[in-house]
């Protein structure tokens, strides 16, 4: 039995109707995010590519296929202070130049491996207290935020939580002395 149907049955047994709504993004939310954050078509494409470098497709789907970039933009638009939104947008806008400075090439001319290296470098970037440092700070903030939200959007997606690692609302009774050796699960190859 499908798990959500099973849950609904449980709720019914317990004495009432439980509504299990679905809460996907409406296209309005996404459009509002693009508009408020003034994201251009090329920036949208760039963000999609960066998220798919952070979590690429392999045996399992990647971030882009799960529309994680839309999730990132809605989170930035709805759940961040305006200061942090500005920092994110500055970092996104400054990213192409950062790519050129570091690698001497345009982003879309880089190999996947080179893109990974570059993003990893940006994530670890330490900014100094100079005008150049301000730019580095924005790059680092943009990439760290994108990484964090990519991970969240990917793991807390319907695909992962129903097909790959089914999420249970009912975790089962407590065992306060569980042997770690008995908790090992079969490896999932991403």
């Amino acid at each position, binding site marked *: 039995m499908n798990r*959500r149907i099973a*849950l*609904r049955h449980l*709720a019914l*047994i*317990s*004495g*009432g*109707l*439980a*509504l*299990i*709504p*679905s*809460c996907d*993004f409406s296209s309005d*939310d996404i459009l509002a995010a693009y508009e408020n954050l003034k994201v251009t078509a090329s920036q949208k494409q760039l963000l999609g590519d960066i998220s798919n*470098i*952070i*979590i*690429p497709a*392999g045996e*399992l789907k990647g971030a882009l296929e799960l529309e994680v970039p839309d999730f990132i933009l*809605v*989170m930035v638009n*709805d*759940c*961040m*202070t305006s200061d942090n939104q500005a920092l994110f947008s500055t970092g996104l806008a400054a990213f192409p130049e950062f790519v050129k400075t570091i690698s001497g090439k345009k982003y879309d001319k880089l190999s996947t491996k080179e893109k*990974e290296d570059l*993003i*990893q470098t940006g994530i670890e970037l330490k900014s100094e207290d100079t005008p150049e440092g301000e730019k580095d700070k924005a790059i680092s903030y943009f990439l760290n935020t994108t*990484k964090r939200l990519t*991970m*969240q*959007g*990917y793991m*807390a*997606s*319907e695909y992962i*939580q129903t097909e*790959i*690692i089914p*999420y249970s*609302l*009912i*975790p*089962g*009774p*407590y*065992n*306060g*002395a*569980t*042997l*770690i*050796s008995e*908790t090992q699960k079969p490896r*999932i190859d*991403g």
Partner: protein
Amino acid sequence: MANLNIRNKQERTYQAIVVGSGASGGWAAKEFADLGVKTLLLERGRNVEHIKDYPTTNMLPYEFKHRGKLPQKVLDENPIVSKCYAFGEDSEHFFAKDAEQPYIQEKPFDWIKGYQVGGKSLLWARQVQRWSDYDFEGPARDGFAVDWPIRYKDIAPWYSHVEKFAGVSGNLDGLDTLPDGEFLPGYDLNIVEKHFAQKLKETYGGDRHMISARCAHIHEPRPEFTAQGRASCQNRNLCQRGCPFGGYFSSNSSTIPWALKSGNVTLRPDSVVHSVIYDEEKGKATGVRVIDAHTKEVEEFYADVIFINAAAINSNAILMNSTSARFPNGLGNDSGVLGKYFAFHNYRAQVNGSYEGFMEYTTSGGRPTSGYIPRFRNVKKQETDFLRGYAGGFSAYRGGGYVADARVGMDLKNSMLNKTPPDGPWRVGSHMMGETIPKESNYIALDKDKLDPYGLPTLKFNVSYDDNDEKMILDYQEQVSEMFEKAGFTDIRVNDDHRTPGLDIHEMGGVRMGKDPKTSMLNGNHQLHAVPNVYVTDGASMTSTSTQNPTLTYMAFAARAAHHAVSQSKKV
């Protein structure tokens, strides 16, 4: 005050009126229902029906637009309620927003409110520890506040009465500081928590303990819960959404549907109580004035007995706003103590650490409670340079999870999909729950020049910590650190989060009980000394605070007082 008497007065007359449908009001209504008393249950907020009105209860993480996080706009508009640990994307609809009821902070106070049928009983932490005579005798022994007019023996049968119906899980620990009750099987402590409990016993000669905290969750099915339509707790730990199983006690899952089923109780949501009506000729209260939350029209309802269970702060406010020639300073306020001797629980301090033992173990599954350290300071005699003491929460947990700093790409993806087994030590943590001393200078009052959105006077708060609280924080940090050391914990760190009073959500007092009408508002039966057909049985009635989570005591008070009111009416 238009449209006062559109409907026939008889239609608006009941035997009892209960103001407030949270944990204590729900209990008053349930007892009146069982005793055959025609009752009007008033609630200022909207109706919330069990299961039907829990919109998020079965939502999966990916179904929340922001995966549980609240939009910045909500946080910006609600700086006060946003501080509450339980206020999230899954529960925000059960909290009153800041704009609903502005108030004046002469001193900082975070007032967390649940304005709907069920009140905060939908949101509470569900910890239910009994008081003992060490608590009730505190003010008399230590010379603060006034003596409680009741003792443990007066309330013990009502604790039992409430526990049996609400469902309380716990172990029979045999501690005189925390009396045992009518318990369903207790929840397990984990291997490190048991180790800590054992070490405390060995080290402190039976004076300090750590037990599984008693909680209002059904841990074993019983016919009396099935009769309420409730099933066992499923360990979901999503209680703040409302529980579709009725696994934890709330007015919504338990007392209110029970009361309504009897046919004796009428529930009226969206009814903001303005004041209690006092009849000078009869020398008693005759009803309440109610403002319709939507139309703002005022209507009166009448009854022989009035129960004020509006939650501590609003119960104070209603009495303060109930003025008459006989009571110019608030109903029953001959003593002048109304709103004063207001107190709370001190939750400011924490102690954390690590434990390197039991490295081959972790925990699995869920449980709705954790560990509890009953008060051990100044219990049998005064032994420190501060009055009273503190209880502590305690829990141990094992970390683990994916490596967030893995390199982007397939490394990161695989590390997220395959949780690494825990390799670090166990983490242990405790937080304090300190007794604060009620003082005349800690008070709430009305500002009648500033009106709230309902045209009611605005509350102002003058409540703060004192030197006794500061000393107690240091002692808690010192003692718990020592207890951690004795248990072999390492990397011990103490913290004081300097939280504002109120965030404990254990506000108490202002309408305190006492033996003497000159120094208290209520007698030992929770009746106003001067207006005996008005009862207050929620947090407002507390003479002192002790350290236990207080809701169980309010529920027992409400049940006891309802039976008293009925016994009085039979005498007439």
